[in-house]
């Protein structure tokens, strides 16, 4: 039961949000976002301890004696708790960076938005540890429904409402595909737990239905991850949703779906026929996703759309780590490290965007011209996050990318093998991404501003930016302990 403290905290934070929604006044919102955020960071520490505990003998003993309702549905392994840390950090940072936006841009329903984010983070955490199909399904649906609700929060805005509707319809369709796949898997094997499915499909005679089912499930996950060609919703929704929501959507559902993807496919489908199918789909999916994301991002004129395409590209990088889960011991470490790095750098970048749009009301790229003179803190923060997102050292983005390359090479790449060329494409992609990330930085530093009004940074979002900066830097400077902890924790329990 103690394992569920992180999830419990998140649900509690959400429930409190609904209670205080009765009479939201400014001080209450401030107190809620602050206390909620701090609770999340505190919970992250607890979850980190649980992750450590799971790697010890004591943890193994606890897992062995855990009650049935836990062991049936959730994997009590280190990775699931590492992912709980991630969910709590995402939730905490989103709370901090939302405060100013809610105060300045939204008239009502402010605590509800934060509450839904907390529920979504709980779904994230559940999805990261789910080990059987029903839990996976409900977690992913919880996450999705929260996403639909969050995207529809600014329904007054026509574009926003349209994007929310698009998100809802496409999301439901992809869920249907996934459910179709899940039911086939269950029908063929009669098992719900991933390990059971693996055991039931060990022999021959399964035929082509299993790979079909696996690929159908991949469609559902691909939608949440925004893998090409299931990425269409992404730019519209990111542009239309409130910026803090966009920040959350670009991180939460994507990472949770990637973690679940890695767990489901490496645990349930390690056998030849199905494996060839999903690895093949993921190979091309990763390659096309990263390239399309980066190339299309260059042409955007709205910073939220640009970051939407950039997040598609990052999904492509992480799919490479998922692709090699069965082939390399480093793959899960790479995925976890990149996930942490991505949380800090992407939320950091979105925090800058939120902070800017709170004061100026604009997301157009040209309005960022000359920001370095108007707000040096925001401009330098953006420059830093841009470099991290490109994957330049000494930042967490570099470490994550290096780990992904290492994992992929470790997976048995040889000269002229497809994996070799995938890696070449990957590194060239990070060079392409420089063009648009630094293009924005160039606007901030090299172009004259339209006017000289300063852009003040609010306390909450400023703190969020500071935390993200610290996170990206510390992951490299204190790499020994931090990476060591993540790497120790990036383990699936196969029981």
């Amino acid at each position, binding site marked *: 039961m103690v394992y569920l403290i992180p999830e419990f905290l998140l*649900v*509690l934070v*959400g*429930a409190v949000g*609904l*209670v205080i*929604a*009765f*009479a*939201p006044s400014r001080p209450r919102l401030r107190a809620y976002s602050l206390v909620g955020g701090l609770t999340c960071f505190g919970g992250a520490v607890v979850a980190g301890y649980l992750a450590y505990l799971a790697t010890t003998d004591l943890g193994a003993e606890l897992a062995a004696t855990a009650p*049935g*309702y*836990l062991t*049936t*549905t*959730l994997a009590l392994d280190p990775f699931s708790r590492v992912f709980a840390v991630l969910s709590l950090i995402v939730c905490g940072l989103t709370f901090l960076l939302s405060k100013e936006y809610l105060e300045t841009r939204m*008239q*009502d*329903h402010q*605590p*509800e938005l934060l*509450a*839904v984010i907390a*529920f*979504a983070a*709980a*779904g994230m955490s*559940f999805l990261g540890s789910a080990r059987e199909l*029903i*839990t996976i*399904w*409900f*977690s992913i*649906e*919880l996450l999705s*429904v*929260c996403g*639909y*609700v969050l995207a*529809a*929060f600014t*329904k*007054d805005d*026509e574009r926003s*409402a*349209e994007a*929310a*509707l698009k998100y*809802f*319809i496409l999301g439901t369709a992809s869920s249907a595909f996934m459910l179709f796949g899940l039911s086939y898997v269950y*029908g*063929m094997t*009669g098992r719900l737990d991933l390990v059971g499915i693996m055991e039931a499909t060990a022999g021959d*005679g399964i*035929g*082509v*239905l299993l790979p*079909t089912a696996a690929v159908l499930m991949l469609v559902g996950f691909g939608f949440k991850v925004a893998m090409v060609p299931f990425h269409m919703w992404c730019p519209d929704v990111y542009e239309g949703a409130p910026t803090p929501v966009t920040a959350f959507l670009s991180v939460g559902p994507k990472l949770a779906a990637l973690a679940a993807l890695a767990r489901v496919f490496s645990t349930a489908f390690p056998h030849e026929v199905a494996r060839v199918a999903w690895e093949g789909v993921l190979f091309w999916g990763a390659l096309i996703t990263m390239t399309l994301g980066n190339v299309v991002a260059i042409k955007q004129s709205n910073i939220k759309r640009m970051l939407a395409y950039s997040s598609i590209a990052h999904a492509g990088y992480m799919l490479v780590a998922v692709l090699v889960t069965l082939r390399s011991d480093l793959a899960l470490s790479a995925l976890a490290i990149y996930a942490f790095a991505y949380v800090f750098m992407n939320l950091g970048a979105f925090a800058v965007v939120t902070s800017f749009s709170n004061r100026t009301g604009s997301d157009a790229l040209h309005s960022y011209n000359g920001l370095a003179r108007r707000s040096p803190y925001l401009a330098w923060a953006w420059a830093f996050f841009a470099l991290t997102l490109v994957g330049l050292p000494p930042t967490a983005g570099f470490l994550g990318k290096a780990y992904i390359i290492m994992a992929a090479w470790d997976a048995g790449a040889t000269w002229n093998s497809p994996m070799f060329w995938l890696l070449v494409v990957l590194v060239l992609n990070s060079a392409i991404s420089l063009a648009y990330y630094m293009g924005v930085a160039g606007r901030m530093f090299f172009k004259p501003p339209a006017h000289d009004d300063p852009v003040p940074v609010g306390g909450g979002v400023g703190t969020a930016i500071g935390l993200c900066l610290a996170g990206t830097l510390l992951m490299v400077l204190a790499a020994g302990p931090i990476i060591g902890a993540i790497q120790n924790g990036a383990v699936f329990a196969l029981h």
Partner: protein
Amino acid sequence: METLVFFGLAVPILVLAVVVVTTPHILRAVVSLFLALVGVAGLFFLMRAPILGVMQLMIYAGGVVVLFAFAVMLVRRVTGEFVRQQTGLAGPALVVGLLFFVVLMGIGSGYLAGLEDEAAAAGSVHPVSRDLAERLVLTDVPEEIDPVEDFSPVMIRDYVIPFEIASILLLVAMIGAVLVGHPLEQKHPGGEIEPEEPAEEGEGA
């Protein structure tokens, strides 16, 4: 008799499904969908899977169609009028649908044939369709056991966590429905009645 009932249900379902995608009036589509889903529930009962039948009624006929109704309301808000379905992509949609059907039939029949061989090799006396039925429906147990009685403890004991996740899910869906369904003109100071009861449910999870 069973065959008769089967066709009695299957034919209307198909007709209604066609109506769902062809009718220009979106509310009519929603109603047709509702009826088709009820028909599918009937099929489940026919296959002696009452739980699935009830689920089908509760979740799809009940929940999902309501969601669709909300979606329709959202659309109405955006455009100010009922949306007419686009039929420009009917041709491609038909092709893709047929293709999917053919592939599934091919794979399914291949799978069935494989099972037949397997069954023949094992000298099984049961017809394959029964094996398949056992695999697809929650009747991996002797028939005398009441599936409902068997099902409920499993749901709230072993699968209590997904059960609770589902409760949070419904809570969020409710918040969403209230938010989206709120008329724009009215400005409310905050949440009204709706957060009250879900809050308790959320804390229980």
